[in-house]
């Protein structure tokens, strides 16, 4: 099992690598196309802003590479948002893997949505073994709508997609690498159960 973590201009990618290493999974942070294509699994992490990041991905032709991957792919945080069809952040067309749209939270409560919140209506091997209403760690100001690809929901200001899945593409809005034992289970499921 070899996991490629896509390297690009996003913040704190290392924490994903460290989490996989704690699980004993062989992994590498790389922007080498061949290494990404030949990996058993790919993680598309992300902290940052949608428009500049999308532009970076396009310039590096990583947008096409990601869309064409056939092995299981896990997007995290901004990774999830960029895998959707569109983001209100910077009015940005995104990868379009999930048809759900990414919208800005109405500031009825504090934004960003930061801290531990529960995930419910879990339905995916990615979330195998987790209890309903498990807590995971979020930091974000934009959210993906609930849609047909939603595999877990969270409520903050409104319901949104905490996780999505379509074909071989999976994504979480929260940070499994920062979500204690629950997060490690999710990464473990991605490595061991998702095919």
């Amino acid at each position, binding site marked *: 099992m070899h996991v490629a973590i896509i390297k690009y201009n996003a*913040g704190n990618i290392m*924490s994903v690598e460290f*989490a996989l290493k*704690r699980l004993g999974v062989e992994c590498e942070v790389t922007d080498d196309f061949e290494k990404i294509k030949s990996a058993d699994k790919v993680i598309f992490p992300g902290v940052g802003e949608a428009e500049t990041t999308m532009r970076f991905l396009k310039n590096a032709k990583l947008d096409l590479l990601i869309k064409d991957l056939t092995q299981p792919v896990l997007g995290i945080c901004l990774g999830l948002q960029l895998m959707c069809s569109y983001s209100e952040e910077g009015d940005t067309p995104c990868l379009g893997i999930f048809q759900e749209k990414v919208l800005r939270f109405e500031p009825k409560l504090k934004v960003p949505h930061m801290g*531990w919140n529960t995930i419910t209506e879990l339905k995916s091997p990615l979330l195998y073994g987790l209890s309903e209403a498990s*807590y995971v760690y979020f930091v974000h100001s934009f959210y993906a709508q609930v849609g047909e690809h939603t595999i877990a929901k969270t409520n903050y200001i409104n319901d949104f997609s905490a996780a999505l899945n379509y074909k071989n593409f999976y994504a979480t809005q929260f*940070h499994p690498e920062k*979500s*204690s*034992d629950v997060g490690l289970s999710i990464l473990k499921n991605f490595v061991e159960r998702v095919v």
Partner: protein
Amino acid sequence: MLAKRIIPCLDIRDGQTVKGINFENIRNVGDPVELGAEYSRQGADELVYLDITASHEKRKLFSDLVKRIAQNLNIPFTVGGGINEMSDAERLLAAGADKISINSAAVRNPQLIDQIAKGFGSQFVVVAIDAKFEDGKWTVFLNGGRIPTDKELFSWAKEAQDRGCGEILFTSMNHDGVKQGFACEALSQLSLSLNIPVIASGGAGNMDHFVDVFTKGNADAGLAASIFHFKEIAIPDLKNYLHKHNIPVRLS
């Protein structure tokens, strides 16, 4: 529902966790990585590591420590102390910190908040404010509470928010170390006047103080050091206690 966070704070000097009272009388309480991992196992929601090392040379030691923390910890952590410019923030991000907290440098050069937020995102920037209530107002202090400024807590916090910081960590110097409860009135005013999370610090002495800080103080997170380090309150007990008082917390 979004949980209220419990955050142990570890002061680091020369690579070891230490704890002083009222910023003085410092004692050694153990290895930062081990202590952090233990807090994580007990259910801490996040950790703050503050580098109180005085000398410049030893700052490199702290970056190495941050990397070790990142490798071993599976909850978010903030690091602070000695961050004066963009390159310090960059170095700590590269070492694996989830957030940095800036204090004196932000007061001296408020532009730093804008720069770091723009470069690495608002979620990366916590502005820490040490303030003391005297003569009817909350005055912001620098350098671990030694130097008074002409800034006032509420307007400075608002400015920090407007410049792009993602959280405010407010320490009441009147309450810090004396274990008589948090500055709930000021915290509530602060929290309700901002639309970013407020971390309350200074004054935790028992579990009811945490109930108060989340109800009366409207804080998003409660931070404490000595009561956790000296095992006066166990985090699982505290979480259960808050849960019984209908405060949303993450129970493991």
